[in-house]
């Protein structure tokens, strides 16, 4: 009846490893194909914007990155909740490994956003803008989450502490998303995911969606890959411990 807790679950090959090994090549291929198609559509096939000219092409990096940054955080919080409630280490590991990727997307959105802002708004960074600043806060949230994992020696405790932080931090997500509506900002309001349908021309919408697909596939690939690496590492340690205690 003994449920093997924590690390010891990894002493046995889990279903996850077999499953992920089968999925990984496909997501990797999908990532490559979508990026190739997306970049072609974005850089070559799509028209320059009437007002913005060629700089509009930054959009195809910026917008998916920003969406993914938010999406990954939500996913991280969901994994955290699952790990917290069901005490499943795999969910904890998934949450943990979402964080660096999400922080990367956030940084990408911040950098491309300010690169875009320089020609568009005449400034790299605008403090009064609620969207911009609240997004910076998201970056700090990711950093705090990563730091919290570091300070605990015991991974089970670290997972629970980090999960609590992740779930509490979820409150910031709507603030970020709706900041554009709540405060009148430089940043433009939602033009795709809005009530009443997208307001962007389909010649831009398509490349955008392909790029979003590429980002998603990339995320899934990297996440699975990272989880596999960590599971393997923990399995080695668990086996060592069992040997030591035998």
């Amino acid at each position, binding site marked *: 009846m003994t449920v093997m807790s924590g690390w010891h679950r990894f002493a046995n090959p889990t279903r996850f490893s077999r499953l992920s090994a089968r999925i990984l090549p496909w997501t990797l291929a999908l990532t490559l194909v979508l990026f190739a198609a997306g970049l072609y559509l974005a850089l070559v096939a799509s028209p320059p914007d009437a007002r913005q000219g060629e700089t509009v092409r930054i959009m195809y990096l910026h917008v998916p990155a920003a969406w993914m940054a938010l999406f990954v955080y939500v996913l991280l919080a969901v994994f955290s909740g699952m790990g917290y409630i069901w005490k499943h280490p795999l969910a904890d590991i998934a949450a943990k490994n979402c964080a660096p990727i999400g922080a990367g997307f956030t940084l990408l959105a911040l950098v491309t956003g300010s690169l875009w802002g320089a020609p568009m708004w005449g400034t790299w960074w605008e403090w009064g803008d609620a969207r911009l600043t609240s997004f910076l*806060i998201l970056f700090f949230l990711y950093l*705090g989450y990563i*730091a919290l994992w570091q*300070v*605990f020696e015991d991974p089970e405790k670290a997972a629970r502490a980090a999960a*609590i932080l992740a779930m*509490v*931090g979820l*409150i910031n997500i709507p603030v970020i998303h709706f900041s554009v509506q709540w405060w009148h900002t430089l940043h433009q309001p939602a033009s795709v995911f809005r009530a009443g349908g997208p307001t962007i021309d389909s010649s831009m919408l398509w490349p955008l969606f392909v790029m979003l697909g590429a980002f998603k596939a990339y995320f899934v690939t990297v996440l699975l890959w990272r989880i596999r690496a960590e599971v393997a590492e923990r399995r080695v340690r668990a086996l060592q411990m069992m040997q030591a205690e035998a």
Partner: protein
Amino acid sequence: MSAFWGVVRRDLLIARRQGGSSLLAVGFFVVVAALFPFAVGADPATLRGVAPGVIWVSALLATLLSLDRLFQADFEDGSLDVLALSPLPLFMTVLAKVLAHWLVVGLPLVIAAPLVGVLLNLPLAAFPVLLGAALLGTPALSLIGAIGAALTAGVRRGGVLVPLLVLPLYIPTLIFGVAATAAAADGLPVAEPLMLLASLTLMALVVAPVASAGALRLALG
């Protein structure tokens, strides 16, 4: 219920004996706000412009600084074990400790806010709103801060981590607090930011004790 007030009274007594934690927090608040004119120059117009922000940031920092040992001290001397054996659910114990903390630190900050307003040239008309906003907002600061303090309680010198964990969560309170104060200073309507501030505090009241209790349980293990 008597156990709840037992926790509150204990923390108030300790604060009193330790010699003016309130005074210290208020002192910090005033000193930081008073440093500002030194740092940004004394031009009255500039000063008036930044006053609401400086007031809120320094209140926030004063709270933060006094918070990092909220549970750490009890962890280090084994009191946390005793608190966990109270018939009270752990989240109520947390609430009691936060209430005591707010009475010792938050409330004096509210009372000192007008003084800092004067130091920073805040228009007189904005004072009532400043007081109201502070009264609505400081409990949220204590509550949210408690989460950070609880998360790092079992961790040696985790106190340094508290600001990093808590500051991002403080931002909404900061934004609405400043918004209300600044609007009052400019003679604009203040109802909306005050309402938002109140709802933030309510949300914190629901979430923070439970989250902190979960985190504290880790420190017991």
